[in-house]
Each structure stands twice: as structure tokens, then as C-alpha cells.
């Protein structure tokens, strides 16, 4: 789709091209340094002892034997991490999650830690720590946890009406209109219930850090993170340090998808280092990543949608229960906001609950909460379309939101791409491809807000005219390439002349965590403004060199030009020429910008999926998959495609295979990649992509976020496809082989009963 510049007035020279990424060579040669790849002189190995119980009172921890083991330099319990949070409940939750205090709240909850001269000694020391537990009743299922007599996970959380402890830590209603009136107007109403299981982001790099604290209160932390500034602030608060005296450097990050937005063990590493007075390297095993970092919520939901015979939705209602793990989150709110965001609805309500259980603290996972809501809503949309006898794409188009629609979560939309993606789906050849026996096709759409937030960038021009760009959001999927493209575009120089670096916390002002698809949007904005700042300075230098007023200097195609007839003899001065003269014209040339980036553009995606289901085994094969998504402006289209394909693949895993399985003892039974099976190469087809570009008017280049939206539709798109293939509605993800076989057998049994009756 051609770029529409009607909102931004921008024509692009460099943005939208596909150069090679600057971190490519380091990453293909093994030179790139990730969380576990750094070392420091005299470093110790840190290890964490974790609760084997789902819920237990910690009666006593005896560390004396471990402390006496030669080579052990520090042993840590919650006593070494006093509560310095000053009544900040969110911060206290992080503290308690890093190290259990009176009670272990889930299988895998940290209870003690050691630092020793090598891994063997550290392992021995862990075995010598004796913890006396008193097991308590536990609950791991979201619906069970809401029952009146369920074991209470956090007694400090009370029901607002009764004042009694409850596991329901949040209730968020969202919507507008009159549901009763709306449903009364409907000719057809469909009401269904759904379940989704808990999944993990599954980044291939486990959490890892190298912490170094001196007795003078100064420290350094090298860590794999999506938000080194946030990590710094949290660690400094929990350890009682001055923020400026803790320098946090984000390593190359081996995937995050939301899971590395939260602090899990870094304060423990710093506290161990402080106690031992030596650097400590702390790396999670894969089992620890599954048991003790933050997966996404499991959910159960009830969805009710009514429409008239001609296909107009009159009312829509969603009740969704989000399982938050052992600590309160904002997941219900995000679910309530996203559930009906694709549609133009007069009467709608989403009521979402946050529920505590004895599982690890839930973290963000790519468009958190939206995929589960979309699974229920988009499945119900398909059932309703079928009952009305309307094509499912047409039914969605008839009700799709548009510019001026009052979104179900409050705001009135500006220009948006939901209709464009649906129309692209409608005309896509994939929709007309023939299907064989046991095969089915499904489609679904999805929404994500995208966010902006606090951001700052530095841009320094060297004397040879090459440019150092320093940004404070992190790079997982090619951000250094896209930021270099943006700087080159704005300055009017080649992409190759820009070198982009992720700054540590001592080199830049605060940058919010890289989440909510904010990296390209907000660092892009700060980079544009920093470049314009540098251009202003270069115009001043050119004016001085020419000895004319700065008002008579313009910037065109990478050069200062003197404007006005009387200046026609002056010609132009390129960035390189101005840079070369900079030592004589006032010193180094730099641009800087700090901004709270507002106006992130909402983004929509529509997906098409073909599957084949083996009726003997219940196994599903993805035959073909197409992603259509609005990017606003694709700065580097290849990396945008990569985000769309990666998000779809994660959605496919969630839809078909991935789930946390808890035993009756409340322990996680599959904390490894063998039993928690993410899609492998032979599971997937090529994933086709179509990028739409409906510019975001609030960004100078029209950029929206692109990272998350495409994990929202797959659960429902695949659910619809599988249901169409087998003729039975699937209402529980993952649609693993046993679950599909069970649904088929139940349907056959029901059919027999009908024919017998």
C-alpha cells in the first residue's frame, strides 16, 4: 500500500528502505554480549533457593551450615532486604516477589540466595540451607480462587464491601450505552464461555545479570532488560541507594516480549554483591524462568453479543476473569479496554476481574490481556455471523470502528486501520484458496493501544560528519537500524553515516521501559527532535561561516543553504563541511531532546489462517497463515514484517500447544522446553504479511507501534479455523490434541443421543 502523507506531509528518502542492521555482524559472529556474557574480576556465582511448595509459611531458615562452607561469600534471606518501600504497595510486591518474607506464595518463590566462588560450591551451599515450612492450602485455578472458601493468597487484600480478605484484587467495568435496551433490539443473541491457559513469553535468553556493589553505596548492574532506567529506580529504592549512584547497563537482550519489563532477581544480585563485597553473576536456569519469572494470565470468560438480522450489533457484553498470579496486576483493566475496541458499538460493557492464585506473578506478554479477550469476542463474532448467515469478514466490516467512533474504552478514534485491514483480508487471494478434507479456514481481528511515555535521545556530530545517536529504549528487533534511518532522514545524510547506541543510565535522562510498542514511536520522535535541534545549531554555524543572519539559512538535503537573492553567491555548506569546521566555529555540535511522547497511534491487525486437523490424533497443522497489520509508517519494512511474523508464531503456539500445567500439589509440572512446547521450525509454514500504512497524525512520520498487535488475533483466528475444520466449536486454548479429541468425542456422543432419542 502506498504511503499516504496527507496527515504528515512527509516524503521519505531513507525511511521505508531496508538496509542491513548495524548489530548484524556482532550477532552472527557470537561477538554480541548478552546478559550472561559479561564477567568481572573476582566475580562470584549467585544461586537462588526456591520454594518447593505452592503455599507455605516459612517458619525458620537456618543458613549457618551454608555460611560455614569454604568458598561461600554471602548467604541472603529476606532479613537482608528490609522493607524500605515507605508504604508503596507496588514496590512492596516487587520486594516480596524477589524474596519471600513470612510465606512462600508459589512453587518457585525465592526464599534464600548464596554467592560463592564457583557454581559447584554455590550448589552445595543451597543444599545446606535448611528451611522449615508449614504447608498451607493453595489455589491455582482462577475460577476456584474466586469461590467464597478459597485459600487466601494475600490476606492484606480486602473486599471493599465486606472488609474480608479476598483473592479478587481488581474489578474493572468499561463501556457505554444500555445493555438491556441493546439486547432487546437484537434478533439473534449468542452467549458462550471460554477458557485460555497460562503461557510464557519464552524468550530464549534466561534472566541474567552481573551486579557489583561497593561499600561506598555505588554500584553497577549489567542486565538483560527491557527497561534499565526502571530497573535502576526499583533496585535503588529496594536497596536504599541514591539513584544516580547505581549505573545500569542493558546488555544485548535475547528476547523479552514483556517478560523483561519487571524486576525479578536483580535486587538480590546487588544485595549479594553488597554483602560479599565482590561482583556477583546471577543467571536463571530455564526451570527458574518458567517457575519464577512472569508468565501471562490464564482466563475464563463469558461473552454475549446480539445483532439484528441485517448484521448490526446492538449490544455486546464480556465478563473476563484474569489470573494474576500471587500479586495484583492491571491485567483486568487492559482486558476490559481492549475487548471490544475493534467495533463501533452503541451498547457495550466489559467487566474484568483480577484474581490472585498461588502461581508466579504475572508479567506483560505482548499486548497483555488482549489476546484472551479477543479469543472470546472474535469466536463469538464468528458464531453470530454464521447464525445470521453473513460472511464473517462482511459481518466485521459492517460493525468495524472508524474515524470518529467512540471506542468502547472511552476515546474517540482518529484515523484508524481496522476497516483497511479487513478490506485487505477480503480481497486477499488466501481467502479464495481451496480447502481439502479436514481442513478449515478462520479469520479474526485484534487491537492494541501502543504507548508513548518519557523518552530522551542524544545526537552528536563528529568532526568527519558521522553521527552518534544515543537512545534510551532498548533494541530487540532492529531499533538501532530504524533509529539510524530516522536520524539519517532528518539530517539528510546516508544511513551508513549514523551509529546508534543504547545509552546506559548514566549517559541519558530517564527513559521509560521499552514496552507497549513504544520504542520506534517515542524514541523515533525524540530522535527527530534531537536531529532538528542539531540542525538548528548547524544553521547557526553556517550563518557564522557566511557572516549572514541565521534567519537566512535553511536546511535542505543534508546541507545548509543561504536563502535570498543577495546570498545567491554563497551556495551551500554540507553537514560534513560544517562538522569539519566545528572546532573553529564554537565547538562540538550536538542535538538533544527529552519528551513525554503523547499520541501513540492505536493499531489493528486482521489475520487469516488455514488448518488441517487429524481426526484420529487431534493434532492441528497450520497450512497457511496471513497477517495484515497497520503500521502507520513502516520505518524498516523488513523488521516490521519480522514483528508481525513473530507475534503470529507466538499466537500459534498459544493457540495449539503452550500451557502451564499445575499438579494437584500446586507445583508446575512442565517447567522446560521439552514439556512446554513452543512452535519449532517444522511446525510452521511461511507467514505471509501485508503492511498497511495509515499514518498516525500525532507522530511527525506517522509511526504507530507495531510490535504487539499481531499476537491478538491468532487464538481466535485459529480457533475459528479449527472449529470450521472439525465442525465443533473450540472454546478452550490451547487446542491441544487431547482437547480437540475430547471435543470431537463429546460432539459425537451428543449426536448419538439425539439420533437415539
Amino acid at each position, binding site marked *: 500500500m502506498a504511503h499516504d502523507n496527507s496527515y504528515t506531509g512527509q516524503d521519505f528518502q531513507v525511511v521505508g528502505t531496508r538496509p542491513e*542492521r548495524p548489530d548484524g555482524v556482532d550477532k552472527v*559472529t557470537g561477538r554480541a554480549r548478552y546478559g550472561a556474557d559479561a564477567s568481572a574480576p573476582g566475580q562470584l556465582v549467585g544461586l537462588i533457593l526456591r520454594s518447593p511448595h505452592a503455599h507455605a509459611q516459612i517458619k525458620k531458615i537456618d543458613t549457618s551450615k551454608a555460611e560455614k562452607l569454604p568458598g561461600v561469600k554471602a548467604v541472603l534471606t529476606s532479613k537482608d532486604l528490609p522493607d524500605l518501600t515507605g508504604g508503596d504497595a507496588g514496590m512492596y510486591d516487587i520486594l516480596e516477589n524477589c524474596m519471600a518474607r513470612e510465606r512462600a506464595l508459589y512453587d518457585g518463590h525465592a526464599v534464600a540466595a548464596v554467592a560463592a566462588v564457583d557454581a559447584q560450591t554455590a550448589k552445595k551451599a543451597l543444599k545446606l540451607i535448611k528451611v522449615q515450612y508449614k504447608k498451607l492450602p493453595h489455589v491455582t485455578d482462577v475460577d476456584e480462587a474466586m469461590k467464597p472458601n478459597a485459600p487466601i493468597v494475600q490476606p492484606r487484600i480486602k473486599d471493599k464491601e465486606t472488609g474480608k480478605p479476598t483473592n479478587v484484587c481488581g474489578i474493572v467495568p468499561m463501556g457505554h450505552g444500555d445493555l438491556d435496551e441493546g439486547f432487546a433490539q437484537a434478533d439473534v443473541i449468542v452467549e458462550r464461555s471460554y477458557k485460555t491457559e497460562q503461557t510464557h513469553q519464552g524468550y530464549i535468553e534466561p534472566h541474567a545479570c552481573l551486579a557489583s556493589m561497593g561499600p561506598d553505596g555505588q554500584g553497577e548492574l549489567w542486565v538483560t532488560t527491557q527497561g534499565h532506567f526502571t530497573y535502576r529506580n526499583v533496585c535503588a529504592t529496594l536497596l536504599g541507594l541514591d539513584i544516580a549512584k547505581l549505573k545500569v547497563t542493558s546488555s544485548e537482550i535475547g528476547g523479552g516480549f514483556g517478560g523483561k519489563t519487571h524486576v525479578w532477581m536483580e535486587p538480590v544480585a546487588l544485595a549479594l554483591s553488597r554483602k560479599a563485597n565482590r561482583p556477583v553473576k546471577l543467571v536463571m536456569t530455564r526451570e527458574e524462568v518458567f517457575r519464577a519469572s512472569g508468565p501471562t494470565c490464564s482466563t475464563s470468560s463469558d461473552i454475549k453479543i446480539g445483532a439484528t438480522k441485517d448484521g448490526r450489533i446492538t449490544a455486546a457484553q464480556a465478563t473476563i476473569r484474569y489470573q494474576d498470579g500471587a500479586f495484583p496486576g492491571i491485567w483486568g483493566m487492559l482486558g476490559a479496554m481492549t475487548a471490544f475496541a475493534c467495533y463501533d458499538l452503541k451498547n457495550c460493557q466489559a467487566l474484568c476481574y483480577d484474581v490472585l492464585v498461588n502461581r508466579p506473578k504475572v508479567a506483560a506478554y505482548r499486548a497483555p490481556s488482549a489476546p484472551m479477550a479477543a479469543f472470546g469476542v472474535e469466536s463469538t463474532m464468528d458464531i453470530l455471523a454464521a447464525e445470521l448467515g453473513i460472511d464473517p469478514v462482511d459481518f466485521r466490516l459492517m460493525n468495524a470502528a472508524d474515524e470518529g467512533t467512540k471506542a468502547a474504552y472511552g476515546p474517540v478514534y482518529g484515523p484508524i486501520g481496522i476497516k483497511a485491514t479487513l478490506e485487505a483480508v477480503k480481497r486477499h487471494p488466501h481467502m479464495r484458496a481451496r480447502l481439502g478434507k479436514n481442513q478449515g479456514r478462520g479469520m479474526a481481528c485484534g487491537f492494541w493501544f501502543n504507548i508513548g511515555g518519557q523518552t530522551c535521545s542524544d545526537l552528536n556530530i563528529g568532526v568527519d560528519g558521522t553521527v552518534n545517536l544515543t537512545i534510551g529504549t532498548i533494541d530487540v528487533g532492529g531499533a538501532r537500524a530504524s533509529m539510524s534511518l530516522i536520524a539519517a532522514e532528518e539530517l539528510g545524510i546516508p544511513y551508513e553515516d549514523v551509529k546508534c547506541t543504547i545509552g546506559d543510565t548514566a549517559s541519558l535522562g530517564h527513559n521509560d521501559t521499552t514496552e507497549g510498542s513504544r520504542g520506534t514511536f517515542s524514541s523515533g520522535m525524540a530522535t527527530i527532535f534531537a536531529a532538528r535541534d542539531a540542525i538548528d545549531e548547524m544553521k547557526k554555524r553556517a550563518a557564522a561561516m557566511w557572516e549572514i543572519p541565521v534567519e537566512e539559512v535553511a536546511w535542505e538535503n543534508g546541507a545548509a543553504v543561504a536563502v535570498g537573492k543577495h546570498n545567491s553567491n554563497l551556495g551551500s555548506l554540507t553537514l560534513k563541511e560544517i562538522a569539519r569546521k566545528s572546532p573553529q566555529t564554537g565547538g562540538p555540535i550536538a542535538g538533544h531532546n527529552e519528551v513525554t511522547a503523547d499520541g501513540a497511534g492505536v493499531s489493528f491487525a486482521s489475520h487469516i489462517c488455514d488448518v488441517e486437523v487429524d481426526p484420529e490424533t487431534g493434532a492441528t497443522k497450520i497450512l497457511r497463515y496471513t497477517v495484515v497489520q497497520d503500521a502507520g509508517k513502516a520505518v524498516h519494512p523488513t523488521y516490521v514484517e519480522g514483528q508481525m*511474523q513473530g507475534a503470529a508464531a507466538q499466537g500459534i503456539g498459544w493457540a495449539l500447544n503452550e500451557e502451564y500445567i499445575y499438579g494437584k500439589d500446586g507445583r508446575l509440572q512442565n517447567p522446560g522446553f521439552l514439556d512446554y512446547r513452543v512452535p519449532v521450525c517444522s511446525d510452521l509454514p511461511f507467514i505471509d504479511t501485508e503492511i498497511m500504512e495509515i499514518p498516525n497524525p500525532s507522530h511527525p512520520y506517522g509511526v504507530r507501534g507495531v510490535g504487539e498487535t499481531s499476537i491478538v488475533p491468532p487464538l481466535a483466528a485459529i480457533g475459528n479455523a479449527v472449529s470450521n475444520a472439525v465442525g465443533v466449536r473450540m472454546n478452550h486454548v490451547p487446542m491441544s490434541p487431547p482437547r480437540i479429541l475430547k471435543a470431537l468425542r463429546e460432539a459425537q456422543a451428543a449426536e448419538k443421543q439425539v439420533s437415539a432419542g
Partner: protein
Amino acid sequence: MSSVHVSTTINGDAVEYVCPVGETLLDSLRDRVGLTGAKEGCGTGDCGACSVTLDDQLVCSCLVLGVEANGRTVNTVEGMAQDGELHVLQKKFIEHAALQCGICTPGFLVAADALLQRNPNPTVEEVRYALAGNLCRCTGYDKIVRAVLDAGKEMRKQNKSKSKKR
């Protein structure tokens, strides 16, 4: 646990190190030899991020002991580029954007190299099954498969022109 002296060849260089008998080859490479290209994603042989070759056989170095390298030849991602020139697979991975975060990339490159040496002209299906032991969570594998197919094509072309010259 006692330690053992190991003499081995890594990426063509004679290397010696001392490691405890229970230490994995992955840890020996990373912590004793300083080659951190191979990554630990799982430690149980499920993710392939630690892929290296041992006497030309593709292995998960987290499932091999450091002492097993004694008298044998180990090749890692650090040995793929020769004389300052990237291997064709490395070039194609960058060109096709077959990496995002890059943590799985060393393992994929070593595994793909092992595939192309065994089967210089693989089908899409053969590439997908040969790489099924390597997990990538970022790309959905699309661009990885394309990069490997393209590298195979390029390498066949190079081999053809080499044999013609002879």
C-alpha cells in the same frame, strides 16, 4: 569434584583448559576458553542455542562434558568467519533479517552449516526439520528458512565456479 586437564582443538586452534569432570562443554567454552557465542537457553538440549560441532557432528554443548573434548575438534560460531570474511550463511542471515534479538542465531548458524555440508540442496521441508531442534521465539522462522535456502543456493554457485576453475 576433581578437575581434569583437557587438550583440544577449537576453531582450528590448539586449546588447553582445566575443568571439573561434571562441567558441560558449554560452560567450559564460555567460562574457561572465553567463547561466549554458544548460549545456554535451557541446559537440557531442547533449544539448540548452544549448538557446536564435535568432530564435525552437531551437538548441544550443554549435553556434552567439557572433558569429552579432549583430543577432539570443536567448532563454534566464532570459527565460521574466515580471514575476515563472513561465512555465506552469516551474510544471508543479516541480508534476510533472519535474526531479531539474535540469541538463537549462533546455534542456528552452526546447525544450518551442518545441514548444508550434509545436504547442499535441501528442500524447504528438509530445512525445517533439520532446524527443528533450534528454538527461535522472535522470527516465526520465516526469514531463517529463506536465509538458509538462499545461502545453500549461493554456496552451490560458489562450489560450481570453484570446480570449473580446477
